[in-house]
């Protein structure tokens, strides 16, 4: 391993993409295979500079497509390496088939995903349609509000994904441009401290171990496929516990606390907003303003979307009177994916059964301003006073031609 500086954490101005590249440098993975795509480009760009400068020991594979990138990652992981990649939008869509292969082969490949809209019409800006579409692929999905969280999640990623009770690939999501390209200050931990926290990688039935030859990716038919899938599901169920354990250890080491979700001023809130990633920052701002005016409003920000902590979230929402869910992706002909999960959590685990209101916002990078959030909260109040959400259900926010 390359020698690293021992020192104190630094407060640095950095973009979200730059922060993830720094985390990758500190983790020093064995293999990175990536094909740069906006807005995740800076991650790959910065990291290739680290490789060229000799700051990491990583074998950097410049592949010809994302399909090849994920294929190379799976092969390198099966060979016993710690493997990372970064992508966005159409790039991950092109990995589609391999996302499932990585998960079902239980290869703990780590991905820094910068959320971007999927094409049609072509758009490079933020929404969550890429990761939401991949939610059934079997990857752990951690969402990040800002640079610091994207960095911290990536530092924790290896220990979660490689845990012997989990062994699943993991993607750390952050909002394209809003987080990936905005410079914010954050705490960059010491190289040595991060490397010690992450720890060495233990190969698992490596295909390069010729004394113990194994076969990965064999045909699996009616007699065993479903048993392997059941084992995969168990890895995901175990991940709920492991994510919390690793997060608790992270808090002990670096002082920043993370749960499976964050509750912001939730204890006595009548109106609760639910959101992912950067929108949570603006929502907190508005909550503070409206709290000052006496409106009891709070936020539940999801960190772990896969696995989804149904019971814990249902319990956290059991004091709410209305839960308004803001989805940054559309499932055409259905409510947004976050809303359906929250509904499941509330129906099963919130005895008081709050009203549930679905909104879609921000597709293709459409802004969600503080005024929009205020409006959403006052509309939620109206629903609450009426005792029903009525025709407000499923409204899209900040779309010309619609009211909200």
């Amino acid at each position: 391993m390359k020698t690293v500086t021992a020192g104190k954490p630094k407060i640095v101005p950095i973009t979200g993409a730059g922060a993830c590249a720094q985390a990758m440098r500190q983790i020093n993975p064995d293999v990175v295979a990536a094909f740069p795509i906006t807005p995740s480009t800076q991650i790959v760009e910065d990291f290739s500079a680290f490789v060229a400068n000799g700051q990491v020991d990583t074998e950097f594979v410049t592949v010809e497509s994302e399909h090849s990138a994920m294929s190379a990652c799976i092969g390198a992981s099966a060979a016993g390496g710690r493997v990372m990649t970064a992508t966005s939008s159409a790039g991950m869509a092109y990995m589609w088939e391999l996302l499932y292969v990585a998960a079902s082969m239980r290869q703990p490949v780590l991905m820094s995903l910068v959320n971007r809209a999927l094409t049609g019409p072509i758009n490079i800006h933020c929404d969550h349609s890429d990761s939401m579409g991949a939610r059934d692929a079997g990857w752990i999905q951690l969402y990040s509000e800002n640079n610091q969280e994207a960095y911290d999640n990536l530092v924790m990623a290896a220990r979660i994904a490689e845990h012997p009770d989990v062994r699943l690939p993991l993607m750390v999501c952050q909002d394209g441009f809003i987080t990936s390209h905005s410079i914010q200050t954050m705490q960059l931990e010491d190289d040595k401290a991060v490397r010690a926290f992450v720890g060495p990688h233990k190969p698992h039935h490596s295909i390069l171990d010729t004394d113990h030859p194994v076969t990965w990716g064999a045909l699996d038919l009616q007699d065993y496929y479903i048993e392997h899938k059941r084992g995969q599901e168990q890895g995901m169920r175990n991940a709920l516990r492991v994510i919390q354990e690793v997060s608790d250890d992270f808090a002990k080491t670096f002082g920043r606390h993370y749960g499976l979700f964050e509750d912001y001023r939730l204890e006595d809130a009548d109106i609760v907003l639910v959101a992912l990633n950067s929108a949570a920052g603006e929502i907190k701002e508005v909550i503070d303003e409206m709290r000052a005016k006496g409106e009891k409003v709070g936020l539940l920000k999801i960190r772990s979307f896969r696995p989804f902590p149904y019971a814990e979230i249902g319990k956290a929402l059991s004091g709410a009177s209305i839960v308004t869910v803001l989805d940054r992706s559309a499932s055409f002909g259905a409510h947004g994916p976050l809303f359906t999960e929250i509904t499941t959590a509330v129906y099963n685990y919130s005895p008081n059964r709050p009203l549930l209101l679905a909104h879609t916002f921000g597709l293709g990078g459409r802004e969600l301003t503080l005024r929009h959030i205020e409006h959403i909260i006052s509309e939620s109040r109206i629903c609450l006073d009426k005792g029903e959400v009525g025709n407000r259900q499923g409204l899209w926010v900040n779309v010309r031609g619609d009211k909200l």
Partner: protein
Amino acid sequence: MSELKNWQELPYGGVILEAGSAAKYETGSWRTWKPVTHRENCVHCLKCWEYCPEDAIVLENGRDSAGAPRKFVKEVNYYHCKGCGLCIRECPVNKEGKAVALEFVRDEV
């Protein structure tokens, strides 16, 4: 095939830890037609053995007319033979049409 295992007993991700374990997998039940050897007509050219995708042609050691050691076709391993018929197609005795060294017959279920 050995007794089927529960999901808890399986190694992660369908990895196969034992080299050569494919030999334990019974594929003979896939067969609807089966090759039958007629050794009296066989010239032991080993074409069937060479072409068989399942390695289901079993050979035995013997000696040729000059006394040198060589392999002879012994039998078909019906535990692995899927009944694809490649051996029937490639058999040079069959091709000549005068005799049948390998015969394809409907398998009994």
